[in-house]
């Protein structure tokens, strides 16, 4: 753990979420986000994040802290952390992916998109719509046509669960 004198020397940043909660983090942790890095380079130490809500921001700060301490020896630990991190509901994943996209954290973005893609594999169009809260904008005729054009995708069983 860092001693008191070291803590004083560390540059700190304040992040403010969309619901006005403030979080203090080390600059070295924050700059893993390209968005924050750009602001820091412009001299900002107070970073408002109008698109990132508190619940997502807490998780993302956790992620950044964990990944800032990456060494050769804690590889397994980080893998376990990442696995737990994405083990959540679709709605939470969407909120996180939206935040990661806004903050430009590419490794997190990659992991979240891959997780979402893996989890919608083998789902039916109906299940995918429910998961993403999408209204179908096809007419019944159009839908029949597009299904026919993609008939290969409809061979075999679908997973109709929504998690």
């Amino acid at each position, binding site marked *: 753990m860092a001693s008191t004198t070291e803590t004083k020397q560390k540059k700190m940043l304040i992040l403010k979420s969309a619901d006005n909660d403030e979080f203090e983090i080390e600059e070295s942790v924050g700059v893993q986000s390209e968005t924050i890095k750009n602001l820091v380079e412009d001299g900002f130490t107070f970073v408002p994040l109008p698109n990132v*809500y508190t*619940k*997502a921001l807490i998780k993302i700060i956790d992620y950044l802290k964990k990944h800032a301490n990456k060494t050769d020896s804690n590889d397994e630990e980080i893998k376990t952390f990442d696995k737990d991190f994405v083990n959540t*509901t679709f*709605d*939470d994943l*969407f*909120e996180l*992916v*939206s935040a990661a*996209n806004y903050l430009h954290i590419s490794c997190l*973005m990659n992991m979240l*998109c*891959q997780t*979402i*893609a*893996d989890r*919608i*594999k*083998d*789902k*039916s*169009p109906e299940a*995918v*719509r429910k998961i*993403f*809260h*999408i*209204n*179908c*904008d*096809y007419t019944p005729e159009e*839908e029949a046509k*597009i*299904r026919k*054009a*993609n008939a*290969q*995708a*409809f061979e075999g069983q679908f997973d109709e669960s929504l998690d």
Partner: protein
Amino acid sequence: MGTNFFINDNQDVLIEILKRLDGRSLGVAACVCRLWCAIARNDSLWEHLCFRHVSPPPEGVRAVVLALGGYRRLYMVCVRPVLNRLRKWRPIGMESDSEIVKRVYWTRHEVELSLSLFCVDYYERVLLGGGDAGACTSSLMFLCKAVNVAPKGLDSIILPDGYLQEHRARGKNETPSLLGSSLARRYVAGDCNLMIDMAILSISFRVLSTGELYVMTRRHKERWYPGKQAVLEYFLPSEFHCSEMGLADVDSLQRG
């Protein structure tokens, strides 16, 4: 949470997610709504899908793939069968790690095979008169299906199952014209390898700005032929097509 984010308002995120689907799920995605359909049709998505397991991705094939029908078709006609085949084989000895089983890694050989098959598909479809050619006996698309004849200790050896039938039909002494004598000998000796199989299929392309397609086969190195004759002459067993395609044309090309 959940109320603040709507995927269709975040197309950049949606593209990143769809890019990571497999072919089947991308087909399903096209049926979700109009926006998803428009994105799922984008050829760059299929380009990613075709070669995402290849490192480094093959260079200089883009113009050829686009000229021959695009990446979506490449995936559907050629990459998918090869992928399915690899999925069956690769898990051997890797059961302990499910992640590895899920991700299929491609070598240069699978890329070459896919591209070669794609060119065969193109010639059969466009130059031999469309859909019928795919079903006729001289089609080379059977190369998509393969049997594993790997001797123990080697993996990833691919032989088209048509090859074996050809070989048996002709008896041991005769060599199937399609796959060449060296391969046949090696097969009989129980020692064949992937490279030879690929070498037979391997061809190079050059697409000119005028849209003309030229082909160089490995057998006729350093010579570029207008695509059709050269490829057919090279690929098809002589008894199927010699008379139709006019070998004389190819001869005159070689001389002049």
